[in-house]
């Protein structure tokens, strides 16, 4: 019974010593790194990974260089884009390697609060669009223009789309105007949300295996094109500002030069790691090369990064200088 009578004081002592440890002043919520960072005296960098393989490729190469050329330890955390901005502003993660454009967050964190600093271009240009499998486009070449989509609605019907054709959308974290587009372009389609990129990819491969037609929201650069060749469907051309009103959108998605962002503290005091991440800039081909090794040849991200690093010395040497 002695344990029970001593438990309470011990608890109080524990709690108060924690309070002492945390200091009696204000607790700064912007300076709370991950508890796993800098363990055992190692210098660590925490990078966020988004759910697509392109983002994994960026992180894999950055991680490889940080670990093997600069002697850092790298922790990676998978978070969706918007929450990643929040985590970045609080220093829970140090850098976001690939951002597809979040004007609201940029205004709040970069311009107003200044807790996040721009890290420059990644060098890759992203583009969102509607795609059909190439085997289907070859059979019916006119399907690649939105004006003819209604003709094919009956072929693209599924149990989930009711009487209409199915336009498959993916993860709720991605930017999409598809519901508005279907309505404003008078298309006889139902947007069906796969709910996650994993589910969407699995479904596309399943369709492709049976050579069934499908219509999907998808984006480049993406490794899946090598596995399931797809052709983009032309939507009304994109003009600056045509997607300003989410209700009235009736045009294609823009081409976006992808951006990097760093936590401001880290950008200032991150030393060589921050300098490397700021200079990190490669091409769509480079990214696809690494992505393919990860997703298609099933190499681990580290092995894929090593292969790329070994054969592209001139590219990354410039980032280290």
């Amino acid at each position, binding site marked *: 019974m002695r344990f029970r009578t001593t438990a309470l004081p011990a608890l109080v002592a524990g709690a108060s010593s924690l309070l002492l440890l945390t200091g009696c002043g204000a607790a700064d919520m912007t300076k709370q790194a991950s508890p796993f960072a800098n363990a055992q005296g190692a210098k660590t960098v925490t990078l966020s990974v988004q759910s697509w393989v392109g983002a994994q490729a960026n992180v894999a190469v950055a991680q490889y260089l940080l670990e093997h050329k600069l002697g850092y330890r790298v922790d990676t955390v998978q978070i969706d884009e918007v929450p990643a901005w929040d985590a970045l502003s609080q220093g829970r993660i140090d850098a976001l390697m690939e951002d597809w454009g979040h004007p609201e967050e940029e205004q709040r964190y970069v311009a107003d609060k200044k807790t996040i600093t721009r890290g420059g271009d990644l060098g890759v240009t992203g583009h969102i669009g509607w795609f059909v499998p190439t085997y289907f486009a070859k059979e019916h070449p006119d399907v690649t223009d939105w004006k003819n989509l209604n003709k094919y609605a009956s072929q693209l019907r599924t149990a989930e789309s009711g009487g209409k054709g199915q336009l498959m959308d993916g993860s709720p974290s991605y930017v999409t105007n598809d519901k508005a587009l279907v309505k404003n372009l008078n298309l006889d389609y139902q947007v069906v949300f796969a709910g996650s990129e994993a*589910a969407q990819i699995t479904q596309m491969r399943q369709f492709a295996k049976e050579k069934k037609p499908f219509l999907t929201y998808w984006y480049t650069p993406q490794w899946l094109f090598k596995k399931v060749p797809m052709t983009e469907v032309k939507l009304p051309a994109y003009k600056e500002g045509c997607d300003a009103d989410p209700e009235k959108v009736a045009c294609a998605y823009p081409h976006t030069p992808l951006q990097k962002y760093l936590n401001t503290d880290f950008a200032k005091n991150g030393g060589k790691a921050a300098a490397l991440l700021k200079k990190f800039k490669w091409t769509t081909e480079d990214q696809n090369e690494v992505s393919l090794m990860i997703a298609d040849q099933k190499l681990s991200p580290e092995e894929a990064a090593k292969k790329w690093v070994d054969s592209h010395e001139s590219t990354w040497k410039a980032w280290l200088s």
Partner: protein
Amino acid sequence: MATITASAPLSLPGVLKHRAVHKLLLIAVAAAVLVPLANARWASGSWPGALTVDVSEPLAKTSDWIIDNRDSHPLFLYFFGYISNAVVLSVRAVYLVLLAAGWAGVTAFAGLVAWRVAGVRLALGTAAAFLACGLLGMWVPTMQTLAVMVVAVLTAVVVGALLGLAAGLSDRMDRALRPVLDTMQVLPAFAYLLPVALVFGMGVPAAVLATVVYAAPPMARLTSLGLRGADKEVLEAVESLGSTARQRLLTARIPLARKELLLGVNQTIMMALSMAVIASIIGAGGLGDRVYQGLSTVDVGAALAASIPIVLLAVILDRLTGAAGERLGATEPDQRRLRGRAGWGVAAAATVVVAVAVRLLNGTDWPSGWVVAIAEPVNTAKDWMVDHLYTGVPVVGGTAEWAGHFTTWVLDPLRDGLQGLPWWSLLLIVAALAWVIGTWRTALTAVLALAAIGVLGVWDKSLDTLSQVLAAVAVTVVLGFAIGIAAARSRRLERQLRPVLDVLQTMPQFVYLIPVVALFAVGRAPAVAAAVVYALPAVVRITTQGLRQVDPSAMESARSLGATTRQQLFQVQLPLARPALLLAVNQGVVLVLAVVVIGGLVGGGALGYDAVFGLAQGDLATGLVAGTAMVCLGLMLDRVTQPTERRTKKGA
């Protein structure tokens, strides 16, 4: 995780049937008066727009306020900030200790604790499990998860025990706490991940606190149950010795309740582990994050490699706390040679020796060569299964066709039917069901919960979700009863089922996401399939147990009267096991509802999708409304399926 805190209620005799008729008559009278009124004012099939409240604006404002003031407002600087710092520091401290002990130290320590608590067999199993985590290449993530779990479980146990202490000692506190604990248990974890992450920031602090919210209720319930259940005579005896209230509590009531307390700790650990993956969505790191990363590259093998350590940890901790509970209950003194302090001393010394020795030999990190790659064979197996089952199987058709038919013939009519019913008629149906099965209080709760859904403006979406839940529960109950009956009749089958059920119950739900889509295509059908897989084990277990506990003499007399096995089953066993079967249905409902969000990730749409959307886009309005609607659905379904006696029973 099934948390069965109720004891078996008695079956309803014929008298109650009369009361049921009375209740229905009363409802019919009330309806005759109210429905024409409601219909005249708000004549619409769906929930009337005039009766909704738009909460998105204030919620968006709240969320903006939090983000703008999080770094400067005293509430955060002097309150939430401290909590968050304390969590970070404690997790870090545990993590550093684990890293310093190295793989050998941790394995030796775990094995020796298991030896002290439960004997040699479990000790070997425990050590093997930890080595397996290393062999799968998951050592560091396992340690991160363990660090988070230690802090989360300790906090949940302390919080739960304090709440339970309050509820156990004061009837007023008990009454006040019960609805709170009820809500905490039906609340889907996704509903509060976002608010918690908003206040504490992404990452470990939010993950730990969300886990505490999720895992504390069983501890609180069982603590209170234990305190209330203490033997009256013992208490009187202690009182007659002139002890103070405090002494009575510390020397009699708490020690008498230790079995319940330990069961509470066990349940808390299980609940906390089941949060490990969900919490990775807000950046908890560790094993959950590996599962999540594996899934995003559609790599089931990698996700499974990270899930196995979670399952192993769950099984070990379950058996360990179970063994500790049995030892507490044992009346025989410990007969082993190294008992008490001496045994613990030997264990501690051995741990240190092993840790230091291996550290000197080859460091603390898991040796990089000692990794078995299981990802590839698993993926090959999955591909084979999908290739051969998806479509065109002779006679029965492929899984994709089943899914299509299930959607068109079951889910669509069910959804359209529910959405087509006038809103007031649904309220009436729920009121009638809940009142017949429970009391007027449960009926009122159920109706209010349903009405709240309408007021929040997500009536149609919630009915879509409801249709999926009902379909999943129906499938689960049919399968669960069938398997449960079979297991109750054959000890061998039950033994063979046990490990399968263990694995299904502890396997993170995210792992079935891809196989389910690969087999059933994107949509509501895979959502239902995922829910069935998750809820089935609990239903099977409760059914088997319920049938087994049927009075043997009743069975005996039936047999002596010459009843066939069929007659025995339908006329004796099943009627007598009715309370257990009702509980199985109730647990089925609660568990199915817990995976609605997973459904959202595979195309289930409706509330599940909204909850995921809210989290992914940091949209408090969408996420919180969807979460609240799920809670309301849960409360409603729980009340409609909950037998009366469970609620009136004291303490449970």
